[in-house]
């Protein structure tokens, strides 16, 4: 081919050609489903099976299914024996948590927006449609729950809670970068207060709350610089004032009374799983790092912990925790049943997480550590900034899998007589009118509640993987 070829002439492999168009549905089906006789037969059989399954499923869900036991006992399933007079606490908690999530989410969105702007990359914020597509299992669960209620109150509650979250998020996006730091603290305060209002863990939280508020004020005023001599004094006054407000607010509410032991139903599953996940993660990290430590004592302890726990069934551990965990602790008042259960689940999951994380640590090439050492990073920074981020990224699927296991294993709490959702479901069929009514339906309901959330966790983990996969070598 020479350079004198006129541009209008078309040669194979010469001039740039358009990318092949996306095939139509018809063409795609012909190519992939009906491309030969065997495949065609297979496609037809499977399609017929799917149709039959869908019809039966829909009939069960909407026509023949007896959902009355679920409908009647929805509150029981969700909140169990939580005192009805204290339900407002849960409502307040949900509002506060929504606000916290909204603040953090909005902060993250606006910071990635700023980073995209710095890097000159176009940024489009997530729309409602994206949100629904991302969280659809949760929305389906919410819809199913709302469909079962007898009054409009729950609908108003869910709608207003979502609104609180969205407003908090929008506010964070509108406010500048200066507010992002303080927002973490306000989110923390919201989460803490949400925790407080339900669990009623007493006076300690007053101090946590005060510390958080003080830190928030410090963080906010950090960038305000004047030469005035009164500045430290003003800052001090501001902190004192903020703390006074916190205490005044705290004093308005009665935080005592509703402790762990009143928690039950799906709420207990959620809280026990969430608490164990949050607590088990650092335990697992520490044990994984400890297992590779150069200090024999640390290594021995880590290996002992991991291998001891992994060799014993969770049910056995739960019984043991229930029966004699209290004896080992130097405390006068016995720990509540739920606390002991969470401790056991934390220790159990921590051991498994440790082995997962260790696998990730081994996957980080030695050269990474050497390069980090060579530029003078201290050992903790080498671990925290170079090794762990890469190690954890490599094991996200296994980590989240373990978290999902833990969430589902929370149903085992029923064997130590905690009234989690599965146990409540059993007790529903002890009620005279539901003795033999809707036994399958209640089970399907419980299964669906777990599935919707576990599936969401799985999807979120895949999303996280994709996002962190940027620049994978």
């Amino acid at each position, binding site marked *: 081919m020479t350079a004198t070829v006129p541009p209008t002439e078309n040669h194979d492999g010469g001039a740039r050609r358009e990318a092949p168009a996306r095939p139509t549905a018809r063409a795609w089906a012909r190519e992939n489903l009906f491309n030969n006789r065997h495949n065609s037969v297979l496609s037809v059989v499977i399609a017929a099976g799917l149709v039959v399954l869908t019809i039966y499923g829909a009939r069960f869900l909407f026509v023949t299914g007896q959902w009355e036991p679920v409908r009647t006992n929805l509150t029981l399933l969700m909140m169990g024996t939580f005192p009805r007079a204290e339900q407002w606490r849960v409502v307040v908690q949900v509002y506060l948590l929504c606000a916290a999530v909204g603040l953090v989410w909005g902060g993250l969105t606006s910071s990635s927006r700023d980073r995209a702007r710095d890097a000159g990359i176009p940024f489009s914020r997530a729309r409602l449609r994206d949100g629904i597509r991302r969280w659809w299992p949760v929305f389906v669960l919410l819809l199913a729950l709302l469909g079962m209620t007898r009054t409009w109150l729950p609908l108003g509650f869910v709608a207003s809670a979502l609104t609180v979250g969205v407003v908090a998020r929008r506010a964070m996006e509108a406010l500048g970068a200066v507010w992002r730091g303080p927002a973490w603290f306000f989110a923390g305060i919201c989460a803490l207060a949400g925790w407080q209002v339900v669990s009623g863990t007493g006076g300690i939280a007053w101090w946590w709350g005060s510390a958080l508020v003080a830190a928030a004020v410090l963080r906010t005023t950090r960038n305000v610089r004047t030469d005035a001599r009164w500045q430290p004094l003003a800052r001090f006054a501001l902190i004192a004032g903020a703390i006074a407000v916190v205490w005044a607010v705290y004093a308005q509410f009665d935080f005592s009374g509703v402790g762990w032991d009143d928690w039950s139903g799906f709420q207990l599953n959620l809280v026990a799983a969430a608490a164990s996940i949050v607590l088990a993660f650092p335990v697992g990290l520490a044990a994984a790092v400890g297992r590779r430590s150069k200090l024999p004592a640390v290594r021995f302890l880590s290996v002992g912990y991991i291998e001891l726990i992994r060799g014993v069934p969770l049910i056995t551990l739960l019984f043991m925790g229930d029966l004699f965990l209290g004896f080992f602790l130097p405390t006068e008042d016995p720990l509540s049943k739920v606390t002991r259960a969470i401790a056991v689940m934390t220790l159990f999951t921590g051991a498994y997480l440790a082995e997962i994380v260790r696998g990730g640590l081994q996957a980080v090439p030695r050269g990474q550590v*050497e*390069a980090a050492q*060579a*530029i003078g990073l201290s050992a903790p920074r080498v671990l925290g900034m170079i090794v762990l981020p890469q190690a954890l990224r490599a094991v996200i699927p296994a980590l989240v899998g373990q978290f999902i296991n833990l969430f589902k294993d929370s149903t085992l709490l029923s064997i130590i007589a905690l009234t989690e959702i599965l146990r409540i479901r059993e007790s529903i069929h002890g009620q005279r009118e539901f003795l033999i009514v809707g036994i399958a339906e209640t089970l399907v309901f419980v299964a669906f509640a777990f599935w919707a959330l576990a599936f969401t966790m799985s999807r979120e983990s895949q999303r996280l993987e994709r996002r962190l996969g940027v620049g994978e070598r």
Partner: protein
Amino acid sequence: MTRTDTATTKGADDQAMVTLEGVDKYFGSFQALRDIHLSVARQEVVVVLGPSGSGKSTLIRCVNRLERHDRGRITVDGVELSNDVKTIRQVRRLTGMVFQQFNLFPHLTVLDNITLAPRQVRRMPRHEAEDLAMELLERVKIPEQARKYPGQLSGGQQQRVAIARSLATEPKVMMFDEPTSALDPEMIKEVLDVMQELAGTGMTMICVTHEMGFAREVASRVVFMDEGEIVEVGTPEHFFIEPAEERTKRFLEQIL
């Protein structure tokens, strides 16, 4: 054995940036370094040559304590290496190292790779560290790659980022461990150019390399190693034209 290193052209010991005296290193029962004596003067560019397994890499890896030497003394800018963590970090701050496999941090952008050490070790504020990083990227001629991740760059670009990352700690000695061995042929030159420019600024350098052209043009002295010991040390002219040792001659015959 003609060991001329004890009386270098630049001479006096207070001038020396890096000294190794009687250094031995074992891996199990295998002796990787045998009684190494070497003194590198300020602003000197020393190129270490030798067949693979001769202990070249081990030699420079002992200088910043990526390997621990078993006998002898190693001093960098007057600081003697000991088992003390603070001393080790001090020595690592004085030295920069560039690896054969680049070893960039894949989870950080190019900019973050470079600013990590200034911000964490030297406590430099972010914007100052980023200004410094951009300056260094200009020097290695890839400022436009600042926001990318290492995986998105070519080998030559990655190695130049690695050089910039090392320079960001403002080291007094730069050590190169076969910096071009993992590169495609067409990218070797861009890295060697950067190294040559760096030598021109008066940086003290110890380079383990197989690039004979670089050794000939840039080195102040060439060190030839075999089986864990220093066989011969001399100027490039001496080394390439009239090597004294039989082993050196054999090595040169094989590669040239």
